């Protein structure tokens, strides 16, 4: 399109617009933005403001309209509680392992699926199944597989001489968290592998060919070409995985409800227990605020890393 043609095209304020129509007025953008803005205001800003307020009050679920202002008492109490500090540690372990292993496994599978082999289409379809399965179904199947009496996992572990004493993996403070991690990663890795596969397919082939012709080995080709191309995708995935893992509820709740003895209690499980078991909305809101602060730190950290990478690339 030439510059002349561009000038002759009707602009947004010219042409055949019906006189008196609100379209084209300076209010038009606000009109179209209003529903989304209202949605965000009602479902995000107002609840968030309410949560901030609640976190500084003593409020019972049974009488939520009557709050007593207690300042920072809720925060002082939860941070003074050894159980809460353990919850933070478990959350950290859960998130880090989920992100590292899910992204790592996803990358390995994506590299495998990016190769040419017979049945590759079928393999790609099969890999997505765990991601497509509903979380509740995954949790129930995992519970069934981990059952100490008839679960296939225990039978297999017994056969190879690695059986858990008593067999009750989900009731063992030592093995419950690893079992939940394995289940979570089993469900997560297909998503990371599919996303990374699409990123791998976007790597310009001529770059890898050039690296190979320059005598680079497989590892160096991967490091210098492939990794540099997929790094932004990996960063985005790591951010998404972190936030999803921080807020994951149904899988952990269904499998252990945060037990045994708090061994799988993450922030969201603690939040739910405070709000609905102990009926303390103030404490629950304080736990939620801690979660929000952690999420904000993660997002800020990822933006910092991304910007640093951009600067380095320039």
């Amino acid at each position: 399109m030439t510059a002349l043609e561009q000038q002759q095209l009707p602009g947004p304020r010219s042409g055949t617009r019906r006189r008196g129509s609100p379209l084209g007025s300076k209010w038009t953008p606000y009109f179209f933005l209003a529903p989304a803005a209202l949605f965000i205001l009602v479902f995000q800003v107002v609840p968030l403001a309410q949560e901030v307020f609640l976190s500084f009050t003593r409020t019972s679920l049974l009488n939520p309209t009557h709050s007593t202002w207690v300042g920072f008492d809720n925060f002082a109490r939860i941070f003074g509680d050894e159980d809460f500090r353990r919850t933070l540690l478990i959350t950290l372990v859960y998130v880090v392992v989920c992100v590292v292993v899910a992204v790592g496994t996803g990358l390995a599978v994506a590299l495998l699926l990016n190769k040419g082999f017979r049945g590759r289409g079928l393999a790609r379809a099969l890999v997505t199944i765990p991601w497509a399965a509903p979380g509740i179904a995954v949790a129930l199947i995992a519970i069934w597989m981990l059952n100490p009496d008839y679960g296939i996992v225990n039978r297999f572990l017994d056969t190879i001489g690695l059986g858990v004493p008593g067999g009750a993996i989900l009731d063992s403070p030592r093995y419950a968290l690893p079992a939940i991690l394995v289940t979570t990663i089993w469900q997560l890795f297909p998503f990371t592998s599919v996303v990374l596969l699409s990123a791998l397919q976007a790597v310009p082939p001529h770059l890898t060919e050039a690296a190979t012709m320059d005598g680079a080995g497989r590892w160096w080709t991967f490091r210098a070409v492939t990794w540099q191309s997929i790094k932004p995708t990996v960063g985005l995935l790591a951010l998404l995985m972190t936030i999803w893992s921080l807020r994951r509820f149904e899988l952990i709740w269904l499998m252990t409800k945060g037990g045994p003895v708090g061994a799988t209690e993450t922030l969201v499980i603690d939040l739910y227990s405070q709000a609905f078991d102990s009926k303390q909305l103030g404490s629950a809101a304080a736990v939620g605020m801690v979660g929000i602060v952690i999420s904000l730190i993660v997002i800020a950290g990822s933006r910092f890393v991304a910007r640093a990478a951009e600067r380095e690339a320039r």
Partner: protein
Amino acid sequence: MRLHRIRRSMVAAVSVTGMAAALLAGCGSDGGSEGGVTKLTFAASTLGDPGRGPLLTKWLEEFNKSQNKVQVSPAAVPYPTFGQTILTQMGSGKGPDLIRFDMPEFESASDAGLIAPLNDLIDVSKYDLLKQPDQFMVHDGQRHGIIFEASNYAMFYNADLIKKAPTTYDEFVETAKSLTKGDTYGLAFRQTEAEEAGVWQDIFNYVYGFGGAWSDGKQLTINSPENLKGLQAYKDLYDAKVIPRGTDAATFRRMFAEGKVGMELNNGGYVTATRGQNADLNFNVAPIPFPVRKQGTILAPIVINEASPAKEEAATFIKWALEPANQVKLQEILGASSVATVTQRSPEKLKETPFLTVFDDLTESSLPQIVLGFEAKTPDIRKVVVKNVIAALQGTVDLKTALDNAQQEASQLVG
């Protein structure tokens, strides 16, 4: 013209806002009146039971037929989330008009002022109420509920596997051990934190059956020697592997129905549920053979929501339910449970289920699964106790230390 456009845009924006607000308004309150007929909602987890739910719904229909000004609709809410769902609704000034609560939630709700006092609505002197369970319906002279169902705990046993029911604790342990072979277990009880409320119900029988109690009415007594003895018995059975460890209640109850579990301590409601799973199972019931004849009972009061705009009409339903003929019908629906008033079981029912009298005879020695003197705090104390007992089962701490920890934590909690 510009002003006109702005006005139109504003009208459009206001319309969008109005539509969104209308969508957000949500559902209306219960207890509505339509054409002179007051419509009430009665929420109960048992309304969703496969066996008893349809029969209870028919019982409600009988009430509706007998009235021309009040109609009651059933609302079945699943047991695991019943308390949370209803209490959250009531906390926000909404919820059903009539509710069948379990004791811990009943105590929390009455303490928070969410339940309508019944003193001025129902004259209970007209009815022959069962005194033992009824005493827990009154707080400081104020009546908050009427017993809808009282279901005492007893020992269920597979009569094909166990010819003579154990009558002492030692016999109980021996029977459990001798039956445990392959995929058959002598006993089953809940022992995972995922079933916190269920573990509480189960350990209650061991604590009270060995002469213990969670409190003396004024102070918590979680780490008393009697409690330690009772919970040691519970732990010994767990350690002896005579139970299917790690298996949840739904599964081991199915195993009992299939003849894979020999004994289980459960309440009267279990009779109907077991027959529903296997009508041919030859099972019997006996008192729990622990040293002290004291056991738990599931008390389920019916209450009126303080937020209901139709309390008088809701009381009409409770008064109808308390009529002798309706109490008999309700008891027949509930099976082995007792109801609010003294009733006589029919000869046909006793012939069909001879052990019904075992449950009835336990009423005077049964206690609701709440912490006396700390009723409203029971859910919080339960959480602390169960967590520590599970820690002892898992071997992370010895039982005495676990109970000491629970005593300390729970004492801090109740102030």
